[in-house]
């Protein structure tokens, strides 16, 4: 599935993955799979009001997130990058707090985690990534950080994506545009969304090298992302990666995919489960055995329990935060609104 005008060869880092790394990738994917399906269950149980599942996208997310250097790179997610967050080692209670409706954007520290706040505006952060990356160029850091922005095939229809790619190419900004093409934007399939059928093909118009990759192969995703980062870091400008994958479940816990596709279609189009596929590979290559997989599953379950407990413990935010976090220097009008809010809520 891979493509052409490929990246400038800057491959000092391109050693094959060690067995340890391969096992680590599997452990992450297993954790993400379990947490993701648990989050859907939490919603059904009333623990959280909503969630955007990523079932089937574990390889695309973990493989790309694993390539990020958290000492210098920065990731700009949308609302479906839980696997990236987990692969980057985020505080997952802080991550999930956005789905608990505790605070928009989550409650982790974006500067420390190198993971921008979660956001719902489709294609909203694509231009932010370009600005951040251009800042790297301007500050001339010897160890260039790379911005990676995640978005879907649906988001690629937004005009902002055009503007972002054009800016990035003109400015040679170190940005990886990481498209997870999961086949659907809610109910609309890629062929009704993307003229020409491919987001990667558009890159040519901007003179940006692009890779269309098998997004269900975690190793292929990791290697493509790693070489894209090396390309950017060497000062060659942006890269477009289109990872072809499949959103196996609903768009969100509020969606009913039965209205636009059948279970049979889902089964056929979904193809092989990326987690199972990786497991078979590790078994066949003798990288891991049954005991390892059992342990990975147990660790995933323990982790989910801890996160669920953390979420349950999150109390509501103090109302005063609503006012005090708007500005660094609040306006008098806002302060007086806060005062009367306080008085009235105390007396009510």
């Amino acid at each position, binding site marked *: 599935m891979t493509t052409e005008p490929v990246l400038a060869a800057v491959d000092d880092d391109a050693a094959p993955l060690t067995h340890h790394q391969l096992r680590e990738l599997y452990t992450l994917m297993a954790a993400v799979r379990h947490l993701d399906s648990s989050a859907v269950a939490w919603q059904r149980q009333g623990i959280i*009001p*909503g969630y955007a599942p990523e079932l089937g996208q574990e390889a695309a997310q973990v493989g790309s997130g694993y390539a990020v250097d958290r000492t210098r790179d920065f990731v700009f997610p949308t*609302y479906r990058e839980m696997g990236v967050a987990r692969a980057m080692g985020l505080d997952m209670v802080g991550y999930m707090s*956005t789905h608990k*409706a*505790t*605070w*928009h*954007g989550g409650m982790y520290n974006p500067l420390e985690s190198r993971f921008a706040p979660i*956001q*719902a*505006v*489709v294609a909203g952060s694509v231009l932010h990534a370009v600005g951040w990356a251009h800042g790297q160029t301007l500050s001339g850091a010897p160890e260039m950080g790379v911005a990676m922005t995640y978005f879907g095939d*649906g*988001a690629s*229809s*937004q*005009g*902002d994506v055009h503007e972002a790619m054009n800016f990035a190419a003109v400015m040679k900004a170190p940005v990886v545009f990481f498209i997870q093409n999961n086949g659907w*934007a*809610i*109910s*609309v399939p890629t062929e*009704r*969304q*993307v003229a020409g059928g491919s987001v990667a093909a558009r890159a040519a118009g901007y003179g940006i090298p692009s890779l269309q990759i098998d997004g269900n192969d975690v190793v292929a995703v990791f290697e493509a992302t790693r070489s894209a980062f090396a390309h950017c870091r060497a000062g060659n400008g942006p890269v477009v990666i289109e990872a072809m994958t499949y959103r196996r479940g609903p768009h969100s816990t*509020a969606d009913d995919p039965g*209205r*636009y596709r059948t279970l049979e279609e889902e089964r056929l189009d979904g193809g092989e489960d990326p987690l199972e596929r990786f497991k078979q590979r590790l078994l066949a290559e003798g990288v891991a055995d049954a005991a390892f997989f059992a342990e990975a599953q147990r660790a995933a379950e323990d982790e989910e329990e801890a996160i669920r407990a953390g979420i349950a413990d999150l109390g*509501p*935010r103090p*109302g005063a935060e*609503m*006012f005090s976090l*708007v500005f660094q220097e609040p*306006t008098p*009008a*806002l302060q007086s*609104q*806060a005062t009367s*809010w306080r008085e*009235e*809520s105390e007396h*009510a």
Partner: protein
Amino acid sequence: MPETITTDRSSGNSTDTGAANVQHMSMQQALNRALDEVLAENPKTVIFGEDCGRLGGVFRITDGLQAKHGEERVFDTPLAESGILGMSVGLAMAGFHPIPEVQFDGFAYPAINQIVCQIARMNYRSRGTLPMPITLRVPSFGGIRAPEHHGESLEALFAHVPGLKVVSPSNPHDAYHLLKYAATRPDPVIFMEPKSRYWQKGPVDVASAAQRPTHDAGVDDGGSLTGARVVREGRHLTLVAWGAMVSRCLQVAELAAEDGIDVEVLDLRWLKPIDADALARSVGKTRRAVVVHEAPLTSGLGAEVAQLITQSCFATLKAPVERVTGFDVPYPSGDLEDEYIPNIDRILFGIQRVLEYRRG
């Protein structure tokens, strides 16, 4: 609890056209039916947006319309609000009556350029030769614990733009008639649907837009479809509201009545143009007013309403017009939503402020 206007058969001056016309349905069903009829009546009508074809819209307002009227009249677009609204301009120029949808209020922002600079100005720019008969449906306001940007109150923003009209129904009956009305107008109308009321049922008289207020007699019957409607009569003060806040104000009025305070509730319906006569009539009688809206306080429509009241009722007003509104903060997350949207207590405090006001 008068959730909506009830048809009071006991009063003598009823112009009842028969129970057959009055159907019980949700606002979602009422809007869906209105769109269905508009499509049937005007072959130039087209409906489009994100997910409104096969899925029937994420709120199911366009449910079944594509199957019935075909993929050319009801269709899914790529996910790009600026594209959706910009396309409406060209369709209107070609003689169509577009009824585009933005999926959630907050996502009208990416299309603001097309709405403000093109749709609102094309008629003016072309000296009346290129009218823009566009009805933009916007699921609006909060109250459903939605994610960020899925619950906002943009009415002041839209109402401020020359060339746009803005309306918001509060019940299924008005939703049905106001949408049918808006969708046949030659000017652009922003149709703000209170999403927290989509599933609330009420009587819809499909034959007649006119429905008498609960307490009857001598007030605007709303039959004109262009003005405000008194939904509860009272003597001591007027609560002015629109959208989802209307039913909340009716609740407040019931509670206030227990303390002997007789509250009138005016459903503004049109946010541009505002029915200044209805405001003058109501507040001219009660001499006190509180405006209630979900949108932030500063530069909100409450200020506009207060000014209109001051202008017509200055000499007889017993207190300055009060406002009970959202705060000047980005729309908060679900856990804080109930703090943000005017609740019963805050509205009662507002009432208390106007009742206890003393000239200094």
